[in-house]
């Protein structure tokens, strides 16, 4: 399968990339930066891992930056994984409108514009494709300081549900993976005490496995999940 993946070079995106490559798929990955760990993966899979440096905060030029030359209509897209996101951690009384808009560009507007172009590609090729968005447990369980970030992920979950309804008759599926807290750069600003508190709220009392999140994404992209659409799949160690 040809999979378009955002935020492919670090954290859970890198692991999704690794799992899909191990399964024999071809990846069209976009990310802002290209750290050594991702370069190692490129060296391992030079034929099937294509990369373009794209800043998704430029949500108005998603079509030109990604779909014009890099992942054009000549590529039949079977799956789209929307993983790229930026965090905005602050209490609500401090909200800054510019930072809020910048976060929504990456977390909401760019994914919607990318889905538009992915659906157009699927329409052109009559592909019964699969779309997977990566959300966050903060949408479902409140955390101090994450209201703005959670609101952007909540928007994605609603968008996915309605994508599933709108395009289901053409065999196109859309689902969301809702990870619990993972030890990634995204949560690196948290103190040990804050992390311990967050893990204590889970049934399994530990950090969510990045590998488990990536394997769930791969499952949702596959035909094994061909009756699953419009769902939010929690991979969160049983956060209650």
């Amino acid at each position, binding site marked *: 399968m040809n999979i378009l993946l955002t935020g492919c070079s670090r954290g859970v995106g890198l692991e999704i990339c690794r799992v899909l490559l191990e399964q024999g798929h071809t990846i069209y990955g976009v990310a802002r930066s290209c750290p050594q760990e991702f370069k190692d993966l490129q060296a391992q899979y030079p034929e099937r891992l294509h990369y373009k440096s794209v800043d998704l905060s430029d949500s108005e030029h998603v079509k030109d930056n990604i779909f014009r030359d890099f992942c054009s*209509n000549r590529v039949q897209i079977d799956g789209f994984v929307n993983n790229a996101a930026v965090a905005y951690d602050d209490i609500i009384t401090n909200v800054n409108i510019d930072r809020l808009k910048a976060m929504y560009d990456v977390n909401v507007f760019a994914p919607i514009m990318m889905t538009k172009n992915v*659906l*157009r*590609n699927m*329409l*052109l090729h009559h592909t019964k494709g699969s779309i997977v968005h990566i959300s966050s447990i903060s949408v479902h369980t409140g955390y101090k300081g994450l209201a703005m970030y959670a609101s952007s992920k909540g928007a994605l979950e609603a968008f996915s549900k309605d994508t599933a309804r709108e395009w289901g*008759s*053409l065999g196109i599926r859309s689902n969301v993976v809702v990870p619990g807290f993972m030890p990634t750069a995204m949560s690196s600003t948290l103190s040990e005490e804050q992390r311990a508190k967050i893990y204590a709220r889970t049934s399994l009392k530990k950090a969510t496995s990045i590998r488990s999140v990536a394997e769930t994404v791969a499952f949702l992209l596959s035909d094994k999940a061909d009756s699953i659409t419009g769902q939010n799949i929690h991979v969160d160690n049983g956060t209650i």
Partner: protein
Amino acid sequence: MEQTILTIINSIRIAQELTPVTELHTTDNLREDLELTSFDLAELTVRIEDKYGIDIFEDGLVNTIGEIYNKLQQ
């Protein structure tokens, strides 16, 4: 160009188990005369864009064959 649009529209009509049309008129309404649904119009848009690089729906709704010809001739 007109022959290409006819071919695209007929490929969509055939997929919807509708009879192909022999010719198009500039006054033909895409929904009422050619019986295209919103999904059919979406496919028409991507096929025309793939061929001519022009998104006919980018700046508003297109209703007739004549309006498509105008967009492509601009």
